């Protein structure tokens, strides 16, 4: 294969493909840091080009969206298939239908264009979102990945090596945000809605539990917190004979809920950094976009002499640029996928 001789230097162009959940995304990244294009198929530009909203969830929609997304990514980057040094694709964890579409498309494009292929773990991609904007980052690191489907606290002693310190025992942090927002009558996704509403609320107004605070663990649990919020809403509605809840009460509840989630996330993450004697913390995933989490984590880090990094908003949620970036570093380490690369819905780091 011609591509085998390609050197992954700082000009190397990598096409990333990400279809593990609801977004169909393709991106071109130069040298693991310069984003040439980052097309996310639930975004407006693609809707405009291909007419109509690209629906979520169904893998069939990934099928429809993947080739236009790749074409658009190459076009926006001004790059031809022949100029690519490699193709990186998410092969897990995620929804099997979506992953299969991405992996199949990546294999077909790589085979047709004689371009090397590498498989990327979705969580690893989220971590590398930080390297796109901070290429100077160096291991060892502590990484908190928080999204609708994941709440993982990782120790990264060296590039490509991961030790899972803790994870959620029930609901993911982002899932708790979404479900609480739903019951409060806010829109989807719930994270940004609660973030906004919480600004007008008192975070100490409603007393809510901090799960596992008695245990020596880096695990998380948000189910009890979610239930406590729901119980509170039920009680308040009952006392108002099912009438609407006042805006101040909702703002106080949003602020109190958000504070409870953020307190646990930042306390455990900083504690993990101290225990592992690591001076750098990175955050990733959709919940890393939460303004209070960014503020609290940075503040707690500063008090302990720990630097805290998080990606810009668009790179917090699912996107292919982070996959291209992680793929670039995998290629540099000599990693290559074979044509038998398959989707692995339960892939671990």
């Amino acid at each position: 294969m011609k591509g085998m001789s390609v050197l992954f230097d700082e000009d190397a162009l990598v096409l990333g493909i990400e279809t593990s959940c609801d977004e169909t995304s393709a991106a071109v990244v130069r040298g693991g840091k310069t984003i040439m294009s980052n097309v996310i198929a639930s975004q407006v530009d693609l809707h405009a080009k291909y007419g109509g909203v690209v629906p979520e969830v169904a893998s069939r929609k990934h099928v429809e969206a993947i080739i236009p997304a790749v074409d658009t990514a190459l076009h926006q980057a001004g790059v031809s298939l022949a100029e690519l040094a490699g193709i990186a694709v998410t092969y897990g964890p995620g929804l099997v239908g979506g992953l299969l579409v991405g992996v199949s498309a990546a294999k077909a494009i790589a085979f047709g264009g004689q371009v090397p292929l590498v498989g990327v773990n979705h969580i690893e991609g989220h971590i590398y979102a930080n390297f796109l904007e901070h290429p100077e980052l160096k291991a060892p690191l502590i990484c908190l990945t928080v999204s609708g489907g994941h709440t993982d606290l990782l120790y990264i002693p060296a590039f490509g090596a991961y030790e899972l310190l803790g994870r959620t025992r029930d609901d993911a942090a982002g899932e708790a945000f979404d479900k609480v927002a739903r019951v409060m009558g806010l829109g989807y996704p719930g994270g940004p809605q609660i973030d906004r509403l919480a600004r007008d609320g008192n975070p100490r107004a409603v007393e809510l539990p901090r799960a596992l605070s008695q245990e020596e663990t880096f695990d998380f649990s948000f189910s009890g917190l979610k239930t406590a919020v729901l119980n509170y809403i039920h009680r308040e509605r009952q006392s108002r004979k099912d009438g609407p809840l006042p805006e101040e009460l909702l703002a106080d509840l949003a602020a109190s809920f958000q504070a409870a989630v953020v307190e646990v996330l930042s306390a455990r993450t900083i504690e993990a950094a101290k225990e592992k004697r690591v001076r750098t913390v990175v955050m990733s995933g959709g919940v890393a976009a939460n303004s209070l989490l960014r503020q609290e984590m940075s503040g707690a880090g500063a008090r302990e002499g720990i630097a805290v990094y998080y990606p810009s908003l668009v790179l917090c949620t699912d996107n292919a640029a982070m996959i291209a970036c992680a793929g670039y570093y995998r290629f540099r380490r000599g990693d290559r996928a074979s044509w038998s690369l398959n989707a692995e819905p339960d892939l671990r780091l």
Partner: protein
Amino acid sequence: MAGVQVVAGDAREVIEWGRRLGKELEAGDVICLFGELGSGKTTFSQGIAAGLGVAGPVTSPTFALIKVYQGRLPFYHADLYRLEDPAQLEDLGLEEFIYGDGVFVVEWAGRLGKYAPVDFLEVRFEYLPDPQNGRQIALLPHGRRYRELVGKLEGEARDADHRD
């Protein structure tokens, strides 16, 4: 038989009822869970998993839609919460799990639509009004296999009543 109703005071008791059910389950059993957000469906499922001898954490399937575990039988844990459009069900390949070699537990089972099997165990979760804050769990059998299953749990439900 109309079914069995039990009251669980807290999450631990919800898990305990799930565990009791899980111990009695056989390959091919389908358990459909109904109830509002936060009413105990995932917690109950964690109990079923424990009763099936699944080791390791059983986490919410909301994001992944379906999760597969191995206990003394395969444990398929599905959640249709995110599927508001029934057409999206077609891409999930649910038949493989519903008519599979394990136990199929599905949250937000009202969204199964045409995939709902004829025979299954219906489990309904309801908030108890303040100040109890517990959950009422109703086990309603559909079909002979599930009438037998509920019959086995009926004794335990009576014992729990007497303890109160």
